[in-house]
């Protein structure tokens, strides 16, 4: 049964958010239920080891290698796992490809589902009420706020991540990138371009 307890236990903790977190960490540590060094390790993992550079590597490879791209679109999970990109919040990956006729964009209207092993922890705006509420109903107005304007001929397909499937957008390769190697291409791939709210950078 859902407990709709109007006397929520969280109200017993200090109201100020930083103190609230600290208080719960202290209580759990004192009882031997969490290890503060494990918390440091989790934070370091998502601050410096796992982030959009992983997804950018996948996109650059897909731009360069048609066989890799075909396998990625067919069943991405084993393909990205081979590159070492697997784990929490990335157990079932689907890659959706942008074309001149269709632009893809990802949201989670119910919470904040996001492909952690490929993109890291979602940015604040992705978790905001405004993005969650508006992305499905008015994606073009949302895109305009990110500086992206699509032609009326390009259909927008918004993916609402309502299950444990995590979506990565494969953006269109920018023109003028012929001859660039994987590292140079990966450097053009922004986080937002893999969520679908941005486009890759164009080479200077």
């Amino acid at each position, binding site marked *: 049964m*859902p407990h709709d307890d109007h006397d929520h236990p969280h109200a017993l903790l200090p109201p100020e958010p930083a103190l609230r977190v600290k208080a719960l*960490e202290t209580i*759990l540590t004192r009882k031997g239920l969490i290890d503060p060094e494990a918390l440091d390790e989790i934070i370091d993992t998502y601050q410096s080891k796992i982030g959009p550079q992983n997804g950018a590597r996948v996109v650059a490879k897909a731009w360069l290698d048609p066989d890799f791209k075909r396998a990625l679109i067919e069943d991405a999970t084993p393909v990205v796992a081979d590159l070492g990109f697997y784990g929490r919040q990335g157990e079932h990956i689907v890659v959706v490809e942008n074309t001149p006729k269709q632009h893809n964009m990802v949201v989670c209207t119910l919470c904040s589902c996001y492909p952690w092993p490929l993109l890291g*922890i979602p940015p*604040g705006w992705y978790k905001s009420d405004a993005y969650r509420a508006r992305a499905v109903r008015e994606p073009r107005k949302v895109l305009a706020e990110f500086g992206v304007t699509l032609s009326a001929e390009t259909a927008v397909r918004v993916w609402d991540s*309502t299950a444990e499937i995590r979506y990565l957008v494969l953006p269109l390769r920018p023109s003028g990138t012929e001859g660039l190697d994987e590292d140079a291409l990966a450097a053009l791939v922004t986080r937002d371009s893999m969520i679908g709210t941005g486009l890759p950078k164009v080479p200077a």
Partner: protein
Amino acid sequence: MTRVHDMGGRFGDGPINPEPNDAPVFAEDWHGRALAVTLAAGFLGQWNIDTSRHARERLSPKDYARFSYYEKWISGLADLLVEKAVLTREDLSEAGSNDPHPLAARMLKAEAVATALAKGGPADRPSDVPVAFEIGQQVRTAHPAANRKVDGGHTRLPIYASGATGRILRLHGTHVLPDSSAHGLGEAPEPLYAVVFSASELWADPENQRDEVVLDLWQSYLEPA
């Protein structure tokens, strides 16, 4: 029957104000701490991802609206720790005991973090439920959108897509059903589909007739249309 987290399509939230691509992962130090405490507590094994999502959804509408993202996490976690009897209310008010905790042996240690995060927790399971829909088939979503096992319980069919007709785009295999799993009623795996809806099926005034929304929906949320 609605809950406050189910906000897809809502009016009135204003501009998005995206931060730049290179903004810090955690805008405040306590954000990272809140995430880490929540993950570490999850490794005690007293609940699953559906239970923890539902704990955040059950914050009162007033709290849900006024709390920032990680305040929801930490508050949902505190509620869950008491509900699952990991902590007592006295523990939270710092009047609790310092006796050794029976779950202490399960504590996630620093050296186990990398392996634990890399291992993940897949949601696909073998299932006896036969696949009922083919790719391309027209389906209609349940109306009203609600947990059919537990009144007010967890479900992943958003209100904006309830009673709508769409088309099966993809079969994802058979996955744990959150409506059951969130409430300790078993994993009840069943077929999960990506279902595509025309924007004009969902919205009174769609931006473009060709636009679409895709949702991942369990078979029991769907009927043939």
